[in-house]
């Protein structure tokens, strides 16, 4: 490939953001191996249909959206469109860091059991620090939907771990006798 051609394509941008794209794909499907495979297929399509990228659009938002739409497309073509990778809590926790650094299993289990769209909402807003509008662009939903999802997820997490039957505020801490392994 000529340098001149390379300069004017989206390839350099994709190369740079590969770690982020990989994380996005991993979180989407909930497993590293399947995530890498999904990313590979999505990248092939992005590069083959590079002309669909509109200059001026943030490349990361576009690429995240492409991976998500590719996944949706594959899901729709699948015999069992509701079928998903069986997510194991332990391996899922490792998506958040190498051994010893991963998040506590309770949090990992909670996130792993969320619908993929909700997992991605958390990643885009809390991890990638996209605003609600851009996160909505990636996931093809209005910004308001992103806000609502965040409330529901947080409330559900609080319900699950934050309160015992008596509403004892110490119950949350009792579930976490030690600090989470992630700093």
């Amino acid at each position, binding site marked *: *490939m000529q*340098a001149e051609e*390379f*300069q*004017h394509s989206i*390839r*350099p*941008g*994709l*190369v*740079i*953001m*590969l*770690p*982020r794209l*990989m*994380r996005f794909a991993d979180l989407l499907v909930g497993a*590293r*191996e399947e995530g*890498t495979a999904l990313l*590979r297929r999505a*990248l*092939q399509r992005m590069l083959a249909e590079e002309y669909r990228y509109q*200059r*001026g659009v*943030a*490349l*990361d938002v576009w690429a995240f959206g492409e991976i998500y739409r590719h996944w949706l497309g594959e899901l729709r073509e699948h015999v069992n469109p509701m079928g998903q990778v069986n997510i194991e809590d332990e391996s899922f926790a490792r*998506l*958040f*860091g*190498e051994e010893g*650094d991963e*998040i506590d299993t309770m*949090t*990992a289990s909670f*996130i792993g059991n969320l619908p993929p769209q909700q997992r991605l909402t*958390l*990643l885009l807003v*809390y*991890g*990638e620090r996209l605003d609600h509008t851009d996160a909505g662009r990636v996931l093809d939903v209005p910004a308001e939907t992103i806000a*609502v999802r*965040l*409330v529901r*997820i*947080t*409330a559900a*997490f*609080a319900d699950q*771990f*934050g*309160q015992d039957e008596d*509403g*004892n*505020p110490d119950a*949350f801490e009792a579930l976490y006798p030690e600090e*989470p392994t*992630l*700093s």
Partner: protein
Amino acid sequence: MTELSDELLVAYVDGQLERKQSRAVERVLEQDDVIARRVYALKNAHSRLEASFEAILAGEEAIVAPPEPQRPGFFVTWASAAKIGLAGAGLVAALALAIAGYGRPLVLPNFAGNRSDATEVEWTGSLPSTWQDDVARAQALLSRESLSVSPEGQANLDLIGFQLGQAVASGLKLPDLKSEGFRFIRGQLLRAGGEPVAQLLYLGSSGAPLALYAKKGEGAAEPEFKSYGAIGGVEWSDEGITYLLAGELDAPRLTLLADTIKKQADAPKPSALNAGKSADAPQAPERRPSVKQ
């Protein structure tokens, strides 16, 4: 018991409420234990979720991108992109090589479980935070439509030149690029790194605008071409002003235009655009120039 929705409480926990609203919630918390416990639980849940996802990228940055990455955009030089493609032997590098076109068609090995190899890859996505890079990004937002309405004051080139010169540097001149097929449309002030940047916009017979940016500062005197995605840019410095000429043009064309501008700036007489008018240059306005910022 006071009824407060989770929506409101999560917004409070997330720091999205205005000060007055936050104070109102806090007053409720002081008086209502049930709400206080709910906020406590939401705050814990929120902080744990946020920390989990922050840690993903934080750990990644520590591994892949010392010392920092900003959110990378699509601007990257060929040299940088090639560097990342050739730097490592792990998953990221292999994917990078495949994307970069080394080994078409895109056939990738099974990389699962090899993420730690990413440590060998030098992160090249963090762009140098020069003002030229910043304004080149802004250039991507411009179109011909951006210039369809021109304020009346833009017709007074002397005034524009004077105003921009006052704001940026007195030696700044408005280049005349008519001979190169570009007519001046308007000038305005931008801001980068807290300092004023003059933006002079030109239109050719077709295509996107051509922009000359000027900012006070020192740099290399010789014009140097850089590519920012589809946008090309030529940088140089002259008499305490650093310039960036940016547009969707190739390197030879942009370099030629930069040479023309440089010659006009170096000429002892005012630029052709202002020829014959400098003696009547407007007096310094009493008020701050009303150029757009």
